[in-house]
């Protein structure tokens, strides 16, 4: 294995490692267990969206609607969670489960709409998801009148039940698992995220569906002529991306105890950034779930270190932009080496 192959495969993890070492030395308060769990928690939502997007981007598609879906799924999940009838019939725990299904289901359903338009009607993914992004955000604002919903008014007849339901979902979105050595415990959303990344990586690398995702992105015509159900694969990746957005929405509702129609604005761009930094090629055929996590972590660690140093958030945006640019330049530089190095 030559240096070029090593770099193209492990370049981004190495950069992440370097960044962690540098921050550990130079940033007070960075190298603590509590801070590491904080970083994991902060990147959870972005990593979840990024892994869904990675599936789409490997097929040479794009999904701009995930940020809006976070908003729309969130308000619908919050509405379900605090619906008087739901709380009364199902109880707080049942309401939390129902809200989770609503969030995931609506996300998957809108992903299905995206996928149908892309796969069957052959509309450009950028256009399709730009449209659903706009529609989704509008629908979320329409549904709540523009205001966050969820937490009941003081005089609400079901006040206690609704708060109990919010608390139930908060176990998922804001809960902490006791862990020896971690006084405040391990954040549940980070655990959900890590499990999802592992599952996403397994599906991509070990299953037939995953293989087909790479094949369709690498050469759609060759895949079709080899008998691969190209349309179903394309449909599948958009459903996955939508469902990931739905999951992120449920976690956010649990965490914040409310669903805001403007939640998730611009999240799609952060997720695309994480995927691209993690080595997923916008031209298709190349990418991985671990790459999405690495990309999200790189952004997260950088933001965290700059936070701890007291650097203005404006600088953090500039730093993120520079990193995206470097990642893409790195990709261009590696392009000639990719054929030799494989894609993972």
């Amino acid at each position: 294995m030559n240096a070029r192959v090593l770099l193209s495969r492990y370049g981004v993890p190495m950069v992440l490692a370097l960044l962690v070492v540098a921050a550990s030395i130079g940033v007070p308060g960075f190298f603590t267990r509590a801070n590491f769990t904080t970083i994991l928690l902060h990147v959870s939502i972005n990593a979840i969206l990024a892994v869904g997007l990675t599936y789409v981007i490997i097929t040479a598609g794009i999904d701009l609607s995930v940020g809006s879906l976070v908003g729309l799924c969130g308000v619908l999940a919050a509405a379900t969670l605090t619906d008087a009838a739901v709380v009364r019939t199902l109880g707080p725990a049942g309401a939390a489960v129902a809200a989770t299904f609503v969030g995931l289901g609506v996300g998957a359903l809108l992903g299905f709409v995206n996928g149908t338009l892309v796969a069957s009607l052959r509309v450009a993914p950028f256009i399709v998801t730009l449209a659903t992004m706009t529609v989704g955000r509008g629908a979320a604002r329409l549904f709540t009148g523009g205001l966050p919903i969820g937490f009941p008014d003081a005089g609400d007849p079901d006040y206690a039940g609704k708060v109990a339901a919010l608390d139930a979902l908060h176990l998922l979105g804001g809960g902490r698992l006791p862990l020896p050595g971690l006084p405040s415990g391990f954040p549940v959303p980070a655990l959900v995220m890590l499990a999802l990344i592992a599952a996403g990586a397994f599906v991509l690398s070990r299953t037939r569906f995953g293989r087909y995702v790479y094949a369709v992105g690498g050469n759609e015509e060759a895949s079709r002529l080899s008998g691969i159900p190209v349309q179903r694969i394309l449909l599948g990746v958009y459903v996955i991306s939508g469902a990931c957005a739905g999951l992120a929405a449920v976690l956010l509702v649990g965490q914040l105890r409310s669903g805001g129609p403007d939640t998730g604005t611009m999240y799609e761009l952060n997720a695309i950034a994480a995927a691209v930094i993690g080595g997923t090629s916008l031209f298709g055929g190349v990418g991985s779930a671990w790459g999405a996590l690495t990309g999200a972590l790189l952004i997260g660690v950088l933001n965290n270190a700059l936070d701890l140093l007291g650097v203005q958030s404006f600088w953090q945006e500039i730093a993120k932009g520079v990193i995206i640019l470097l990642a893409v330049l790195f990709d261009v530089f590696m392009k000639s080496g990719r054929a030799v190095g494989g894609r993972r």
Partner: protein
Amino acid sequence: MTTLALRGIIKRYPGVTALDSVDLTLEGGQVHALLGENGAGKSTLLKVLAGATAPDDGTITLDGAPVTFAAPRDALELGITVIYQEFSLVPALSAAANVMLGMEPTRFGLLDAAAERARAAAALTALGAGFDPATPVAQLAVAERQLAELARALVRDARVIALDEPTAALSHRETEALFARVRALRERGIAVVLVTHRLEEVRALADTVTVLRDGRRIWTGVVADATDATIIHHMVGRAVEMERLAAARAPGEPALVVAGLTRDRAFRDIAFAVRRGEIVALAGLVGAGRTEVARCLAGADRSTAGTMTLQGEPYAPRSPAEAIRRGVFYLPEERKTQGLVLGMSVQENVTLATLARFCRAGVVRASAEREAAQAQVNALELRPPDLARAAGTLSGGNQQKVVLAKALLAGPDVLIVDEPTRGVDVGAKSEIHRRLRSLADAGKAVLVISSELPEVLALADRIVVLCEGRVRGELDGRTAGAQDVLALALPGSAAA
């Protein structure tokens, strides 16, 4: 009168000499036809003429003075225009803007739209064009686009105009109109080069004809003095023969029977059968409809009429997936764009069509997959036999073996191979041939599409010759010669 002379033009590409000491003399006021099989060197010669590619050796003189072209621009400035089959027009711009592209008239640094339109209109009118020069090219018919290209040449005071198969996409009436225009260009003293496959066009239009074969100029003569048989004879020559692989068994039951198969604007009324244990070649020129027929058989395209029968059962695949399930596998002609996922490994490409076999509950069983791929790769002697290597890094011959391995792993009853050895070295070529023959001997039905006559003759038990989307005739592969196939494949040849 203008005289453009090319002397001793040599052009080498890696592994192949595309032009080997070719001479060509073009006289003003004459139409010079360029004939030859696919790969004879016509396109390369046109590129040299256009300045699009630099010859490795040889001289070009214009009216006795030596010229060199560093870029197409140099040739254009000397009045040499090549009109390719794929037009070089900008679809979104108007015909007038396209005609004047690169020589837009300006006033005070701004585009002079009125002058542009006037000059373009004058050139178009001179050619007898009936459409509005303001029309975007995207809305023009093929014949009209051709006029725009011709007008572009006129605006530049072209002295030499080369037309690459100009009638390939034209109707009969449009062809007649084009002929009239070409004759008018000849009257103006322009030297016209006509690249064509059609002998009837050579007869109708050309004064002289040059035959190319395997990158060499074989013969140049006066059209009026030559018979069709003479011209075909020069085109075929003594083609290098490939080893003919004899069938080890007599053909059995028909595996795939096609009757009246039609796809609008591609082919009509195609009928033939492929039997078990038999290799049938679908021969013909590029554009005769061979690949289009194969794609219908493979479920990649739909036919508009006709019937197909597979092992006695009705067969109308709606997708390649369905065709593969029914036992029909198609290997496309472009392995890089249609056959392989270049970024994937050899193993992943080989098992692409059969992955379901190596899965349990959707999860790939890595060892089963690897063993199956390894067996295929070993049997085809892939070099290196490295399963982890990315397919894009292999040589052409080895890439073709990977595609073939993919098909063989699927174990089809009917194998359709489109240009199985294009761009493949001699060694791999004969290995692939032997493999196809052994498949037939094992009772499979094999349909081969090839533009290489020696390959057709070496492989086929029967040869079905297509010409302009129709079956022109069927030949016995054991007795047919190159001349017989070409006589059927060339449109308008009297030999048929």
